[in-house]
């Protein structure tokens, strides 16, 4: 069973993700701020992390950096889930080490397929290759 950790300070968003992912048979853990999120990630080692950016105290960028820099959690793919839609934010997220960038508002029904697809590709190509591809795609976007 796919285990997903959602880190977001807004309760409705966490609930939204939980009900829709559970409906697809995934196991969902929640953290309402960055510190709790990092703690949970280290203890639970989820398969994937959905990470909000704008949070009090530790923001999403800090959390992602901590996770990528930690041997325990660096292999866990991170998908940013955020209202920050500018290309430069996207670039920053992927630069830090995220592999997916979902802008709010999003269709919660597409969340589970997105996660499955992500995990499938990581199984096939490895996390690093995926990150590389995402960055390359982004660069071509920026340069257009």
């Amino acid at each position, binding site marked *: 069973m796919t285990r997903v950790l959602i880190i977001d300070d807004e309760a409705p968003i966490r609930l*939204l993700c939980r009900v829709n992912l559970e409906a697809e048979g995934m196991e969902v853990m929640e953290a309402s701020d960055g510190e709790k999120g990092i703690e949970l990630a280290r203890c639970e080692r989820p398969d994937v992390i959905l990470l909000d950016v704008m949070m009090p105290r530790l923001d999403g960028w800090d959390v992602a950096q901590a996770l990528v820099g930690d041997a325990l959690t660096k292999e866990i793919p991170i998908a940013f889930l955020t209202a920050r839609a500018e290309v430069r934010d996207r670039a920053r997220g992927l630069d830090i080490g995220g592999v997916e960038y979902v802008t709010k508002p999003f269709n919660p029904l597409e969340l589970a397929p997105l996660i499955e697809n992500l995990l499938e590709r990581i199984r096939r190509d490895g996390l690093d290759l995926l990150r590389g591809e995402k960055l390359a795609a982004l660069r071509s976007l920026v340069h257009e």
Partner: protein
Amino acid sequence: MVLSDITRLIQLAGLSDAAIFDGVLETLALALGVALALHLLLDIFVLRGRRRAGELAVREHQLAAVAELSSALTLAGDRESIARTVLDTLNDLVDFDFSGLLLVNEDGSEARGLIGRAAGTDVDWFPSTRLDLENEMSGVRRAVETRALFTVEDAPGSPEVSAELVERAGLKSLVFFPLEGERRIVGVLAAGSTGEFRAFRPEQLSLMRMLAAEGTLALERMESVSALERGLERERLVAEISRRVRAELDIDRLIDAALAETAKALDVERCFIRLGNPGSAAPLRAEWRREGIKPITASATPFLSVSNLALRERKTAAIADVENDPQLDDDSLGGREALLELGSRAVLSAPIILFESVIGALAAHTSALRRWSNDDIAFIEAIARELGIALHTAGLIEENKRQLEEQNALLVATEAMTNELELDSVLALKLAGGRAELVGPSSSKQVMKAAVHQATQLLEGDAALMLELEANELVVRASEGEGLEEMYARRFPVAVSLAGDLVHSREPLVIEDLARDEGPLGALDPVVGHGFKALIGVPVIGLDDALSGVLIVYSRRVRAWRLKEIEALVTLAANSASALANAALYLRVSLEREQSLAILSSVADGIVAVDRAGRIVLWNAAAERITGIASSEALGRPLSEVLRHEMEAPDGVGERAISIRRGERELWLEVAEAVMRDPGGQIAGKIYTLRDVSADRFVEQAKSDFVSSISHELRAPLTSIYGFAETLLRRGELFDDVQRRTFLSYIASESERLTGIVDALLDVAELDAGDLQVELATIDVGNVVREVVESARSESESVQGDEHSFVADLSDEPLSAEADRDKLRRVLVNLVDNAVKFSPGGGTVSVVGQKRSGAVELRVRDEGVGIPEEERERIFRKFYRSSSALSGGTGLGLFISRGLVTAMGGRIWVESVEGEGSTFALELPFEREPVAEE
């Protein structure tokens, strides 16, 4: 040199005896010719430093030594080392005990010891040796005058050599040899022996000659190299001043800079400029002094005799010794006391000449005796010339009347006219005396007044009129003499008056007796009338050959005008025409100048002009204001250096925005440029306009930040609304009623949040437009507080892990105030939301309500992060988001709150201790001011 040698040989041989001379003349001439040619050849070779093996008397090793010397001299760095090398070689090869080199100054009046050598070391007293070549007899003098070597076998017994030199060096026999340079004798070699009286052998002298030639070459090269270097440096300076003369609008600044530079180049303590005619007081215009040097006083200025001399003689006066120079003997120049009192011992002064007239003098003073070199003189003359041009240019824009007179005077080529006309000396004198008065005034009205006055004086007439031609009429512009005062401004048709005839004929009109020549009608002529019996009228014709009017002189008695008088009046009219043209030109130019300057200094845009070399020549007031860089700092430097930004337009784009630093902040400038061309179509420079667009940029940035943050704010509630709607639409019965209700309640509350944001935006729009409406009523503020606190508490409780507690601290009695309930609620919700948002660690949020005199005060207190001092006012600004903001926000809440409270007649402020919390306080009027309606 050769000729004098041969002549002396002839004399020595007794061949000057006329009889013998006659007899052998032809033979001798032939022999002389050959000798001369040989000698010349020899000299040429020696002077070029090349030797022929056939030089008879010189042994081979000596030749080798000379060759060695030649190459050593090429490497010598200064005159002293040249002298040492030559002298040591000399002592060595010719077996002298002592030798010394003396340098002869430019005008041949003095010789000074440079280096003396004996036994391979310097002779210490030798450099202080001074020989007066004009008044004292010496071997050196003789060598200089005869341009030939001079030997003395018995030096102590000879009256022809300097006793001092012989005594100090202890010499018995001596040889003097002139160093003959290209233009003059540059020095003398003196060498001798101390042991015994001796005669010098021809080959020794020949050797000495060669050494002298080598030394001369080296010295001359040294002199020309240093002169060249000095000349170049001064050339550059003159060019720099010349550039400024053509670029600098401020004449005073220019003069100051020129004086300072001149003083530096000449290495003098004082440099100044006087302006005025020769013979006038010529006051000091500006002075540069080295520190500690006392200034020239106004009372001393007329006694500055050297500049007076330069002014009077129209040529540079170079005084090496103020105390003794006979040129200053003439007491009318002002004597020596003033200069000596100022501590000036040597003075150099060049007249400033413009259009053949002396308008002032430039002078340099130094406290030491100094013989001014040709370079010094050429330099000061070049600077004086440039200053003349600068003053001329400045004369057009300066209100310096006296200077203007000079300038006008120069434009009128009266000197030439006076000479050509050969007037009676009295007439000429009168004309010349009046000229200054005529050309001095700057307005045409003054010129015409002066013209009629002078015309009357010149011809000893009784009255004069100046009439100006306007279309077909002559208008009286100036009058002189009894009875004509009221004629001013009267107009006469050209067609029907005697004066009109002048306009047609353009020739002088001479009437000796009106009654006789013109009959009764003549006396009736309105211009003539007034009981005059004779007149001379002349046309006033300018340089462009256009007739501008007529000048008429009247006499009350019948008078036979002399031809000279007619010519004098014609000259005066010509002078007047020039002066009039000049006045008009001056008026136009000064108007244009003033207009340009006024425009340049009043425009809001910075205007900068650079010359062909890219250096700034204009930096207007706006450029100073915008960039904060003073024009004095910018002028003369490249624009890119001043702004610290590359100014070359990329891809030739004319208009662009650049950012520069002004102190701590960034400045955005919109730059446009245009090429300036001179009248010949050549590129003369560029003009840039600079516009400060920083404020626009800031607004742009704020707008873009706003759009970005608003879009973020809108996305948050939309995510929930959209997300839960999609969730509810999932196929299959996945959720129970409780879950559905939760989803729907989220959709509802988030929709409300969305509405709130939109409301806030509308509020801002209304606040900006100034039409925010409040509906004031007397309400119980306490109720609103309770509602807001209650709602905040319940929301907080619904959030898992929220550790805030809420307190409403209100007195029991109702808190009545004039307010708009809905707007007040919005303000309080915002303040309480902020209190929660900025106390992430939880704590108590309290709202305290109290009555104050005439007002109700509400205080919303939190125990959060607090607000830094410098932000406490800024947080009320539109779009401003605190640096301690932990998550998003529109940056509008407090801006709106302040707007709403102000609209309700109240005020809002903040008190805070960083790290301990903040209190937002607001005060609402207790009741409305009673309106007087009786």
